[in-house]
C-alpha cells in the first residue's frame, strides 16, 4: 500500500469512527473530496510582494480579482465566481471574461480577507493546479505553498515557519518554494538584473536557516513573467514602434518612468499607452523588450517567449512541476494526514488509537517524504556529493520527473528487463556509497535514500 492509499484508508477509517459527530464527518468529507482534486497551490507573501502578478503569470491571463479575500482559481469550462462569506450562504458574483481579462462586479458585497472566493476560469494552466491567492497574514489552506519574498536580505522567515506549526507538517517540511518575486528590482532595473538575481538566489538557498524551510529558492521577475505570459498585440506594436527609434535617442527617454510616460514626450503612442506599458512591464521590462525586438524577436510569440524565458518563469514552472505537481498524490496524502492529526487533536475519541498509530507509521515509513527532503538538500547544498553522483542522485530520486524513464535517464518507457539491466549497474554503486566512510553522515543517509528509490524502481 503506498502513501496515498494509506492516507485514503485512514480518512475512511476515521469516517467510521466519527460517524456520530457531524462536525468531524463534515471535515472528513471535505478532505476526501479534496483528495481527488488537483494540487492546491497557495501563493503567499507580505503586502506588495507581487502575489497577483505572479498569479497572472501562472494562469497566463489577467485574472487578478481585485478584492482582498482568499481567492481560489479552478479550471472549468465556464466562467463564474462564488463568494463564501463566513457565516452566510454562498453567493454567485456576476462576472465575465472580457478581452482575456477578468471583470468582477462585487455589486456592493462586502468581502473580508477571511472570506473565500472561488473563481472558475477556463485555462490550460489550471489543469493540474488549484491556485490560491492568499491575502497577507492569512494562513493558506493548501497542499503546497509558493512563498514570495521581495528580497532575500533580512527577510522575515516567521511566516514561513508558521507553515510548519502543525506537528505533521513540521515533520515533513517539503511543501514550500521560496520565490524572489521582484528579481528585476534587485539590479535596479538593469538589463542583466536577472543574472545577478540568480546569483543571489543561489547564495541564499545555501543559508542553513532558509534551506531547512523550503525546497528551493527561485528568482522570478514577476512583472516580466506576467507581461510575457499575457502579451497583447497593441502592447507589442507599441514596443515595436519604440524599437525603431535609434538607441541613443530612446535611451534618454528610458532613463526614468517619468520621462518615458511624459505627455510631451516625442515617443510614438499615447502617454496613457506608455504609462500602461510601464505599469505592466516595468521600466526594466520595457528596456528588455525593446532590446529583444531589436535583436530579432519581432513577433508576439517570440517576444513573449523571450520575455518569459528571461523572467526566470520557466525555472519556476519546472520547480513547481518537479517539487509539487509531479507528486500530487504525496501532497494530497500529506494534507490528509495533517487534517487527520488536527481532527484527532481537536475531537478526541477512544476509537482513534489505531488511527493515530497509522498516521505515525505513515509519517515514519513514507519514502516519498524522504525523497522530497533529499531533493531539497541536494538543491540547497545541504548534502554535497561529487558532481556526477549528485546529478545521478537527483535523477534517481525523481528530481527530473517521477516516472521510471526520467529516473533512469532513458528516452522511452523501459521494460522490466531494461530496468533490471540498468539497475544492475546503479544498485551496487549506491549501496557502496551508503557505506562509504569517505562521505559524511548526511551524505551516507542520502545514499541510503537513493538505494531505497532504486528498490522501489525495481519493484515496478
Amino acid at each position, binding site marked *: 500500500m503506498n502513501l496515498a492509499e494509506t492516507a485514503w484508508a485512514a480518512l475512511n477509517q476515521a469516517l467510521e469512527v466519527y460517524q456520530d459527530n457531524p462536525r468531524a464527518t463534515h471535515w472528513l468529507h471535505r478532505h476526501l473530496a479534496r483528495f481527488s482534486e488537483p494540487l492546491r497551490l497557495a501563493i503567499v507573501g507580505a503586502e506588495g510582494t507581487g502575489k497577483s502578478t505572479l498569479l497572472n503569470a501562472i494562469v497566463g491571463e489577467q485574472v487578478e480579482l481585485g478584492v482582498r479575500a482568499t481567492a481560489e482559481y479552478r479550471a472549468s469550462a465556464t466562467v463564474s465566481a462564488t463568494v463564501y462569506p463566513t457565516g452566510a450562504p454562498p453567493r454567485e458574483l456576476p462576472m465575465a471574461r472580457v478581452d482575456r481579462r477578468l471583470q468582477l462586479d462585487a455589486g456592493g458585497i462586502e468581502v473580508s480577507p477571511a472570506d473565500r472566493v472561488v473563481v472558475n476560469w477556463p485555462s490550460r494552466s489550471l489543469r493540474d493546479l488549484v491556485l490560491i491567492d492568499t491575502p497577507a497574514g492569512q494562513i493558506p489552506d493548501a497542499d503546497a505553498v509558493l512563498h514570495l519574498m521581495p528580497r532575500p536580505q533580512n527577510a522575515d522567515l516567521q511566516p514561513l515557519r508558521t507553515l510548519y506549526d502543525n506537528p505533521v507538517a513540521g515533520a515533513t517540511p517539503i511543501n514550500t518554494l521560496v520565490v524572489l518575486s521582484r528579481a528585476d528590482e534587485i539590479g535596479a532595473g538593469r538589463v542583466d538584473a536577472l543574472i545577478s538575481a540568480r546569483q543571489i538566489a543561489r547564495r541564499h538557498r545555501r543559508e542553513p536557516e532558509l534551506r531547512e524551510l523550503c525546497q528551493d529558492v527561485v528568482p522570478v521577475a514577476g512583472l516580466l513573467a506576467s507581461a510575457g505570459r499575457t502579451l497583447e498585440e497593441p502592447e507589442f506594436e507599441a514596443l515595436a514602434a519604440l524599437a525603431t527609434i535609434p538607441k541613443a535617442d530612446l535611451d534618454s527617454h528610458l532613463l*526614468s518612468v517619468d520621462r518615458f510616460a511624459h505627455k510631451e514626450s516625442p515617443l510614438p503612442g499615447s502617454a496613457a499607452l506608455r504609462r500602461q506599458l510601464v505599469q505592466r512591464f516595468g521600466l526594466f521590462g520595457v528596456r528588455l523588450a525593446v532590446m529583444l525586438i531589436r535583436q530579432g524577436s519581432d513577433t508576439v510569440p517570440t517576444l513573449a517567449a523571450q520575455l518569459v524565458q528571461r523572467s526566470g518563469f520557466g525555472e519556476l514552472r519546472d520547480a513547481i512541476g518537479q517539487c509539487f505537481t509531479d507528486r500530487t498524490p504525496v501532497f494530497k496524502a500529506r494534507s490528509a494526514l495533517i487534517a487527520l492529526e488536527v481532527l484527532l487533536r481537536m475531537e478526541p475519541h477512544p476509537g482513534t488509537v489505531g488511527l493515530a498509530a497509522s498516521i505515525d507509521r505513515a509519517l515514519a515509513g513514507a519514502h516519498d517524504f524522504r525523497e522530497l527532503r533529499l531533493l531539497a538538500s541536494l538543491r540547497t547544498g545541504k548534502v554535497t556529493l561529487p558532481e556526477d553522483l549528485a546529478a545521478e542522485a537527483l535523477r534517481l530520486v525523481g528530481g527530473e520527473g517521477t516516472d521510471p524513464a526520467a529516473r533512469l535517464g532513458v528516452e522511452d518507457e523501459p521494460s522490466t528487463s531494461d530496468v533490471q539491466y540498468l539497475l544492475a549497474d546503479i544498485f551496487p554503486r549506491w549501496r557502496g556509497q551508503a557505506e562509504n566512510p569517505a562521505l559524511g553522515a548526511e551524505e551516507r543517509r542520502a545514499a541510503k535514500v537513493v538505494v531505497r528509490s532504486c528498490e522501489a524502481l525495481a519493484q515496478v
Partner: protein
Amino acid sequence: MIPSWLDLLDDTMRVCAQHDRADLMRRLRERRDHLLDRKVRILVVGEPGQGKSQLINALVNAPVCAVGDDLTTRVPAVIEHSETPTASIILGPDDAGRLAIEASAPERIGVPVESATAQANREAAGPRGDILRAQIGLPRELLATGLVLIDTPAEAPDAILADAVVLASDATCELTAAEIALLGRITRLCPTVLVALTKIDLAPDWRQIAERNRTHLAKSGVPAAVVPVSATLRLIAARTGDRDLNAESGFGELVHRLRHDWLEQAELLSRRSVAALAGITVEQLSTPLHKEFAATQQTDAGEAVAKWHAAGKRLEALQITSTRWQTLLNDEVADLMADLEFDLRDRTRRIIREVDEYFDAADPARTWEEFEDWLLEQLTAVAETNFGWQLERFEWIAAKVARQIAPGRPDVLREALSPDTPLEHVDGLRKPTVEKFGISQKLFIGMRGSYGGLLMFGLATSLAGLPLINPISLGAGAAFGAKSVFEERGHRLKRRQAAGKTAAQRHVDDFFLSYGKESRDTARLLHRALRDRFSGFSQRERAEISESAKAIKQVIDDDVTRRTKRAHEIKNAITELGVLRQRVRALAPIPRGLIA
C-alpha cells in the same frame, strides 16, 4: 557668547555624573565634541537594498560608497570635506568596554578612495571585526560648508551622534511599519529627519507612494518631509552635464534642504538635537528614580519584619517551655527520690529479715566470718542496684526533658551522667562481742548446778542413814551439774544470736542511713547538674534568638532610615531633573512647522 544649548548640555552632563551614569556621560561628551566642531553630521539610514549608499554617491557625485545588488553596508562610512580625495579605514580596539585611557589611539590604514568602503565591508565580514569606520575625504563644495555624510549599516543606526537623519526608502513600496518605527525611534534622539524616496526612476507610481508616505508619517506623528530622488538620474546627469536630468532627479531639492534648512541653521539643529538628547537623558535618569521612589514609599513590611516577629514568638515559646521543663524536672526528681528511698528500705528490710532467720539457727560465734562476707555482698548488691537504677532513671529524665526543650534535636544534651558509685558505706561491720564459754566457766557452772543436786539428794539420803556424800547424791550432783552446764550453753547461744542480730541490724541501719544520705546527695547533685545543663542550653538559645532579633530590628530600623534618606535624595534629584526638563522645553518649543 556661549550658546544656551551648551549650558543645558553641560548641566545635563553634570547631572549624569551625579547619578553615576558614565554610559550616558560618554555619549553626551561625544555629542558635545561633535556639536562644538561646527560640522553638521547627517546620518543616512534605511533598510538594506533601499539605496542608502547610492544616495550618498549621488549627493557627492562620486562612487565612494560601495553599491551592489547583494551588498550590504557593514561598516559605517564617514564622508567629509578635504582638499584632496583621501580615504582610510579606522581600526579600533575590539574591546569597547576598555577604559578610554587604556585604549590605543585608533589605527588608520590608508586606502584608495574608490575601494575604501568595499574593502572595509569585505574585511569586516571576514576576520577583522575591529573596523570602526571608513573615513573618506572629498573636495566637494557641498561638504566644504561643514556637511558630513555618514552611511550606516542597516541594523541599529546610532542616531544619537547625528545632527540630522535621512531615511532612504525606495519608491516601489510604501514605508513599512518597521521603517516608521525606526523613524519614531530616531526622532526621539535626533528630531531633524527627512525621508528620501529613492529609485523614483523605476517606480511608475512614485507620486502616489510619496503621498501615501506623507500620510503615514503625519499619522504616526513623525515630522519628516518626503523628498523623491533618483540617484541613477543624478549620476547620469553629473556625467553628461544634463541640467534637466539633474532637476528631474530631485536632488536639487534634497541639496537645497540640506544646505538651507540644515546647514545654515546649524545653531537651530544643535539646539533641537541637544533638547532631544537632554530630554531623553533626563527621561532615562528619571525613570529609574521614579521607580525607586515608588519602591521607597512602599512600607515594605517584607521579610525582615516577618523574621523579627518570628524571633519574638520563638522567645515567648522558649519562656513557656522553660517553666514547663523545670516543673517536669522537679516532679520527676521528687518521684525518683521517693522511689529510691522506698527501694532502699525495702531491700535492707529484706536483708534484715534474712539475717534474723539465719541467726535463729546459726551460731554467730562459729559462722561470723561467713556471715560477714554474705552481708557485705548483699549490701554491695543493694547499693549497686539502687545506684544503677538511680542513674538509669536520671538518664531517662534527662532524655525526657531534653525532648521537651529541644524537640527534634536528639543529639543535643546527650552527655552521659557519671557520678561515682558510693560503695564505701558497706565496709566496717563490727563483730559482736561473744562471751567465751571456757572450761573453767563450764566447771564453775557445773559445780554450781551439781551443788544443789548433791545437797538435795545428800540430805534426803542422809535420812536413810546414808552419809551426805554418797553415790546417790554424787550421781544426782553430777546430773544436776551437767544439766546446768547444758542449760547455760543454750542461754549463751541465744544471747550470741541476739547480739549477732543486733549487730547486723545496726550495721544495716548504718548502711541505710549513710547510703541513703549519699544517694539523696547524688540525686540532688544530678538534679542540679541537669538543671544547670538545661537552663544553660535554653539560656544560650534565648540569647541567640534575642541577639538575632536585635540584629533584625537594627536592620529594619536602618532600612527605614536609609529609605527615608534615599526618598529625600530622590525627591531632590527629581526636582532637579524637573528644572532641567523645563529648560529643555524652553530650548525647543517643538517647532513642528519648521521641520516639515
